[in-house]
């Protein structure tokens, strides 16, 4: 363009063109150039930005969700990536994943629960590189988290945080009755609950559903382990009604007795869903219950009158010890993703310690550590109730314990076979042994099909 202007200047200087003609031509040249530059700019803007589809888990802790969304938006701006974020809840995440995988249109990156990597193993990428990098930078993984994310020696998910359950106690009632926090279910929890139950006031010493729910299924897993039993043996073979029959029968009988014999649970407990014990506890109807930190978060956020009256302690145990199966939320990248490197970059970004600390603080105890270095964060000393959360996570075992985490173990959980088993005794009138053998038959079938 400069050359053209110079040529015009030469022409006008040489008198080849008149001054008016010079002005007309330079105006055309300038205007045309400006219009061209503007059009080019628009075209450049119209070029599709790199896009990354991310599915996040919408937990009950809304403040944590907001922080995570903010971090991802910031990453998108920084990297000039168009991030399309979608949320999946407790209620719809499996449907969304199944539908997306079968339609061949999964997201690039997804936040999954502990079962996700095993459930969707066939559709996920090996994320060992980023997992190992993050793990070694943060002091390594807690053992249960590492076992839960690995299949055939490869990481299918990058551990993010652990959501565990703790034992909630109404401190005011406990102190008024001169009681101490129970250490084991039988006899401690039973005695504690019997002394605090008052049906006339609709106040119940213990609230733990055995109905089809994640809460019920988690409790059943824990109690089988507490009695020395479990669903799987150390090789990952079904043991519910065989090798561990005796221990499992004792555990199942105890669980049923809390409702049928000891009468320490509300009469409607077999109709409960995952939120029912939260509601009952906050309504002042329960003295103790097992729940995730989301219950504590809800009370703290709402400045609920029971928040300062609540004591969170370690989950009680049984004759064989105290076992807890905590969840391990994770990042998984789908095989179909063409942006795997970007997805890994985003994982590194949100797992940056300062960003994770912000998320952890907003989550009021729900975002427990899965990296060893995060265990010692001073945050976990900021509230006496957080100690039980961390300690429960530190002693957590993975689904499938004492064996490995397998797709069959995830399927048994998904089909709620343990709560069906308990329900068959409580509601269906079956003996504990018959219910165990019936459930064992279903588990054997799953095991055989998965192996096939």
């Amino acid at each position, binding site marked *: 363009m400069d050359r053209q202007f110079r040529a015009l200047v030469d022409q006008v200087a040489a008198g080849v063109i008149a001054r008016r003609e010079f002005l007309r031509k330079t105006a055309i040249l300038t205007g045309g150039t400006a219009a061209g530059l503007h059009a080019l700019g628009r075209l450049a803007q119209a070029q599709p930005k790199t896009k990354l589809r991310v599915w996040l888990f919408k937990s009950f802790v809304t403040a944590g969700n907001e922080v995570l969304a903010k971090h991802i938006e910031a990453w998108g701006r920084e990297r000039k990536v168009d991030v399309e974020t979608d949320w999946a809840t407790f209620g719809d995440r499996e449907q969304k994943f199944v539908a997306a*995988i079968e339609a061949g249109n999964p997201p690039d990156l997804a936040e999954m629960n502990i079962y996700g990597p095993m*459930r969707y193993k066939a559709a996920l990428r090996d994320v060992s590189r980023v997992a190992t990098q993050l793990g070694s930078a943060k002091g390594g993984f807690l053992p249960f988290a590492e076992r839960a994310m690995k299949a055939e020696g490869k990481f299918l998910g990058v551990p993010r945080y652990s959501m565990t359950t703790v034992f909630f106690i109404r401190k005011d009632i406990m102190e008024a009755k001169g009681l101490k926090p129970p250490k084991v279910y039988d006899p401690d929890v039973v005695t504690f609950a019997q002394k605090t139950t008052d049906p006339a006031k609709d106040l119940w010493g213990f609230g733990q559903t055995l109905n089809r729910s994640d809460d019920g299924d988690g409790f059943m897993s824990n109690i089988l382990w507490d009695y020395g039993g479990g669903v799987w043996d150390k090789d990952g073979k079904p043991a519910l009604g065989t090798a561990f029959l005796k221990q499992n029968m004792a555990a199942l009988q105890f669980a049923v007795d809390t409702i049928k014999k000891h009468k320490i649970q509300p009469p*409607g*407990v077999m109709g409960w869903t995952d939120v029912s014990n939260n509601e*009952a506890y906050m309504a002042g109807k329960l003295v103790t219950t097992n729940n995730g930190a989301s219950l504590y978060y809800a009370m703290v956020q709402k400045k609920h009158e029971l928040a300062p009256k609540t004591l969170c302690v370690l989950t009680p145990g049984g004759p064989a010890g105290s076992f807890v199966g905590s969840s391990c939320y994770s990042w998984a990248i789908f095989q179909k993703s063409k942006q795997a490197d970007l997805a890994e970059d985003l994982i590194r970004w949100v797992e940056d310690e300062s960003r994770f600390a912000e998320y952890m603080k907003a989550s009021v105890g729900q975002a427990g550590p899965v990296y060893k270095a995060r265990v010692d964060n001073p945050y976990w000393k900021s509230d006496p109730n957080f100690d039980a959360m961390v300690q429960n996570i530190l002693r957590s075992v993975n689904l499938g314990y004492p064996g490995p985490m397998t797709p069959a173990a995830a399927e048994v959980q998904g*089909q709620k076979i343990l709560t*069906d088993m308990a329900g068959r005794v409580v509601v269906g009138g079956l003996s504990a042994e018959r219910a165990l053998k019936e459930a064992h038959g279903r588990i054997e079938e799953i095991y055989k099909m998965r192996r096939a």
Partner: protein
Amino acid sequence: MATPAARLPGRAALDRREATVGLRLVLGPDYRLGFLFVAPIVLLVLALVAYPFGYAMYLSLTRKYVGVPPVWVGFDNYVKLTWDGFFQRAVANSFIFTFGSVSVKLLLGVAMALVLTSRIRFRSFFTGVLLIPWVAPTVVSALNFLWIYDYSLGVLNYLLVRVFRVLPQGVGWLSEANTAMASVIAVNIWRGFPFFGISFLAGMKAIPAELYEAAAVDGAGPLQRFWRVTLPGIKNIVIIVVLLSTIWTFNDFQIVYILTKGGPGGATQVIPVLTYEIAFGAQRLGEAIAVALYLLPALAVVIIVLARYMRRGQAR
């Protein structure tokens, strides 16, 4: 003068012409245009009904896990289901749920229609109010009932125990096998009876008043008028509504899933919820589809009866 061989029609061309004439005779002179008009709907039906259904049939004959290619197993899924106690219980529960709901909806629907045809004040208002359960989204209704049935915090126990003092203590509506099934049936009835009532109301309004007058002149009382005039007058509507409701209720998922998820202990497990559990919980898509299709022949009989009945009605 001999015709040049090149200008004589070939054998193939003659055959084609004969075939065209034959098709015209069989299908009519405008058969090409007819095909053109029918083609879009045929394609639509093939794409939206036949292909998904055929693919579902195929998947039900495979072992198909999420994200993994299907493996042909023939009728294994169906054979396995036949001897599966949980499936058998789901089938029995589905029948109890369906027939328990439909029979009460039928009675309530007739009662509703009779009340709304009588000369009562604010009839339009009552018609509108009675339609609310039908209009409200099922999810919203079911979630409300989840709260209503709650043992400690629910309004039903509160009314029965504290307000009316009918019961000494509350009932675990969703926590016992019998009450759980009765509770989910009650919600389905609550939601579905207005459809019966409004359909019957439309049928009753179409019955000529002269028939009632003639019956009254002949000395027929209200009950006789109902049996001899009203019921025969709405017979066709009753059959169609009952058949439709049977199909819908049999496939109802939301109410049972939201209220009990098939629990406690499988006491309210019905076919649609079991299908969902196997598909999304167990991720066995082939088996889940087999569950859904297992009772298809029985439902197909209902559909065929309904379709034939409706066609016969049109012919008349």
